């Protein structure tokens, strides 16, 4: 028997106790995970695809909390410290030098008699008493905070916090979606769902509930039949004659034009609604009746919600005639709805932008923006985003209260009626719900620049939505046999979120870079545009650093850099292609080995079998290594 030396024994003992410590720490952190028990029980009762929706919602809550933390640390903390005299610091206010006095006027509207309901209107629309609070951009008319030995540059901090939260969101989403993308890239099949995956990894061994098991069986039945049906349709498509193809393609062109026309009509409706609402908001709003007041304030939100309600139905009808395979139909409808939902926000913001920069049908020379109607335009945009967010929450609560629960009551108590039987109990529609929360998140991303407290409101809103949806799911929904695959759905959710982020960056960059910042309020009163803070700060750096930065941002550097990046990308793509070819060749070789052994005959059987199985094992090993290599390349990429 070999005895371990003292040193080896100590090493083993310390590695074991380290592993145990890590295990304990891991167990403790999993207890800290938000809503772990709720999501586990949802997974057990309704399946992994609905569970992935709630995990996605939890991810958004965390993302918004972190965004708010960034904004708090960079912008709100110095201001609170100074305002409540926690540290011995003071505000630095630099009066603007060469701007017209007219640009710096910010009339605060106050009427004589204030009715009670005006408080409610202010709360719902961000006007009145909410306008001057730290909720909106206009409150931060501070040029710096003077601490003991340095001056904290608030405009720069505000800009950096915006760039930081957008970059952080992008990186976090890309990191989470890398898994799904890798799997898609390596596969030789073009679609996610392979039969091997569905048969061998089809049954979720976690299921312990009898009804959940029955549901899983029926969903597997549905899925496998649907896949084979899709295969048959794909073959039918491949066998189309040329006349049929021409007919189908011209029909598709026509229908796509109709889709574009529907989108254009919706965008125009939103444009007109926004202009109407903006124009009438400036008039005697206090003299209007309560309902009319709210209607005008919320008109853009109402139009957007109506458009988002009607267009999916239109798209679903249209795609029926376009004759795609069922899987592709679902994906295309979802993509169209996604684009519709997210582009409506962009249209709203761009409409506002065009109104802000037009003064009596001409360009504004005095201040660069329409200072009569919008003395503090960032606050107005922030108010619109605030209204959208509040209205979205109200609609979700209202739909759950007034549609889902009554439907469930009707189904349980009046199930003998034909209509109720037809309509049936509600199924938890994942795509619609996901679009809803991505819509909310896009509003948050756009609004966070104009209203620093919006991420906090978004966090609270998503927490409320989590509990509301969970209750609605448990009490009113029945599980649907048509289910997304979990691996597929994660990638889909994050892809939609990424589209939302890209569409959110557009209005933020336009307002930062091309629309002049308001001179009457906000941290950027002394700058032409928001982005101007950066060149001004760079000019305060030492000259060597300045020339370095100027060199990096000049065209002489950017163009070769871009070309080198493209070359590297092409190299990796070519490498991946070469690996795929090697994998294909190895597969052919494997079947060749089998055929050769058949040809050689039976009297050499033991010997041949030996070499054949060794060859096969060797080739399969090589195949697995080649696949692993490809995956590692994608990792590096």
């Amino acid at each position: 028997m070999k005895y371990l030396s003292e040193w080896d024994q100590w090493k083993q003992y310390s590695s074991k106790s380290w592993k145990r410590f890590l295990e304990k720490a891991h167990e403790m952190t999993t207890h800290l995970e938000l809503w772990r028990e709720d999501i586990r029980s949802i997974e057990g009762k309704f399946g992994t695809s609905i569970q992935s929706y709630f995990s996605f919602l939890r991810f958004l809550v965390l993302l918004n909390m972190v965004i708010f933390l960034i904004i708090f640390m960079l912008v709100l903390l110095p201001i609170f410290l100074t305002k409540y005299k926690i540290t011995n610091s003071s505000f630095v206010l630099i009066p603007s030098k060469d701007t017209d006095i007219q640009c710096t006027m910010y009339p605060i509207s106050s009427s004589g008699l204030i009715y009670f309901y005006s408080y409610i209107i202010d709360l719902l629309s961000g006007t009145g008493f909410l306008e001057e609070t730290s909720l909106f951009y206009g409150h931060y008319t501070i040029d710096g905070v003077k601490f003991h030995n340095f001056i904290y540059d608030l405009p720069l901090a505000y800009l950096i916090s915006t760039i930081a939260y957008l970059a952080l969101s992008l990186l976090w989403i890309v990191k989470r979606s890398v898994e799904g993308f890798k799997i898609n890239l390596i596969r030789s099949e073009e679609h996610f769902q392979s039969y091997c995956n569905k048969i061998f990894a089809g049954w979720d061994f976690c299921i312990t509930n009898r009804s959940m098991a029955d549901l899983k069986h029926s969903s597997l039945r549905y899925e496998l039949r649907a896949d084979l049906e899709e295969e048959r349709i794909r073959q039918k498509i491949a066998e189309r004659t040329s006349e049929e193809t021409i007919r189908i393609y011209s029909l598709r062109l026509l229908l796509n034009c109709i889709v574009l026309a529907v989108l254009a009509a919706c965008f125009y409706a939103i444009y007109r609604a926004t202009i109407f609402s903006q124009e009438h908001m400036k008039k005697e709003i206090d003299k209007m009746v309560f309902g009319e007041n709210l209607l005008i304030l919320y008109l853009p939100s109402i139009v957007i919600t109506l458009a988002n309600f009607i267009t999916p139905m239109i798209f679903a009808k249209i795609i029926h005639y376009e004759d795609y395979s069922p899987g592709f139909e679902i994906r295309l409808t979802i993509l169209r709805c996604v684009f519709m939902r997210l582009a409506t926000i962009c249209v709203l913001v761009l409409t506002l932008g065009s109104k802000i920069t037009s003064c009596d049908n001409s360009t504004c020379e005095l201040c660069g923006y329409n200072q009569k109607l919008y003395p503090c335009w960032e606050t107005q945009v922030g108010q619109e985003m605030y209204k959208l967010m509040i209205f979205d929450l109200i609609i979700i609560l209202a739909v759950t209260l007034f549609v889902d629960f009554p439907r469930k009551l009707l189904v349980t108590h009046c199930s003998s009626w034909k209509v109720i039987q037809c309509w049936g109990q509600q199924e938890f529609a994942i795509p619609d719900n996901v679009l809803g929360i991505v819509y909310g998140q896009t509003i948050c991303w756009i609004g966070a620049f104009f209203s620093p407290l919006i991420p906090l409101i978004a966090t609270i809103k998503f927490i409320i939505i989590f509990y509301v949806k969970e209750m609605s799911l448990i009490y009113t929904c029945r599980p649907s046999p048509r289910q997304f695959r979990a691996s597929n759905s994660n990638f889909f959710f994050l892809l939609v979120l990424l589209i939302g982020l890209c569409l959110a960056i557009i209005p933020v960059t336009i307002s930062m870079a091309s629309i002049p910042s308001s001179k009457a309020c906000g941290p950027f009163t002394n700058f032409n545009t928001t982005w101007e803070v950066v060149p001004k700060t760079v000019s305060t750096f030492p000259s060597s650093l300045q020339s370095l930065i100027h060199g990096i941002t000049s065209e002489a550097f950017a163009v070769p850099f871009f070309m080198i990046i493209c070359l590297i990308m092409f190299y990796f793509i070519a490498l991946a292609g070469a690996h795929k070819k090697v994998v294909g060749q190895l597969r052919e070789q494997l079947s060749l080995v089998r055929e050769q052994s058949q040809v050689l005959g039976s009297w050499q059987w033991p010997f041949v079998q030996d070499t054949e199985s060794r060859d096969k094992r060797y080739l399969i090993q090589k195949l697995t290594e080649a696949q692993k290599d490809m995956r590692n390349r994608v990792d590096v990429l």
Partner: protein
Amino acid sequence: MGQCLRYQMHWEDLEEYQALTFLTRNEILCIHDTFLKLCPPGKYYKEATLTMDQVSSLPALRVNPFRDRICRVFSHDDVFSFEDVLGMASVFSEQACPSLKIEYAFRIYDFNENGFIDEEDLQSIILRLLNSDDVSEDLLIDLINHVLSESDLDNDNMLSFSEFEHAMAKSPDFMNCFRIHFWGF
């Protein structure tokens, strides 16, 4: 993790089981608790055995369509000792490594135990998954052909272990679905 009683298991045994399996302390103790509830009272847990029926009717396995195969693969001489149950829980735990899971999945799916997953095995698997009486022959043949065309690399109409391993390494859902939580009951 439920109320787990900590009596009747020595500390060294617990350490040993923790080192030999992928289970955490809590999981081992909960399985020990469940085992004691099911085995005849008064017997020392290391000598007691459970029948295949008793293990099949555990809540974790009750609705699993492959429970009889799982019981066959993990039992010895048609009975389960405590260590067999621990071994089974370890393979199905979240921390187990993929290669171990794939190895046992292959044995579970090999219904006729000839070392290969052939068409007969695939047919049994599909029938168990669908759990319905009216499955047409065409559907079965179609599915079997698709599975073999995707994963049978040497065209011998059956899957050897390396082909199965290769197919499962590509599958994104396998690790997530091949898990059972035995504790908490």
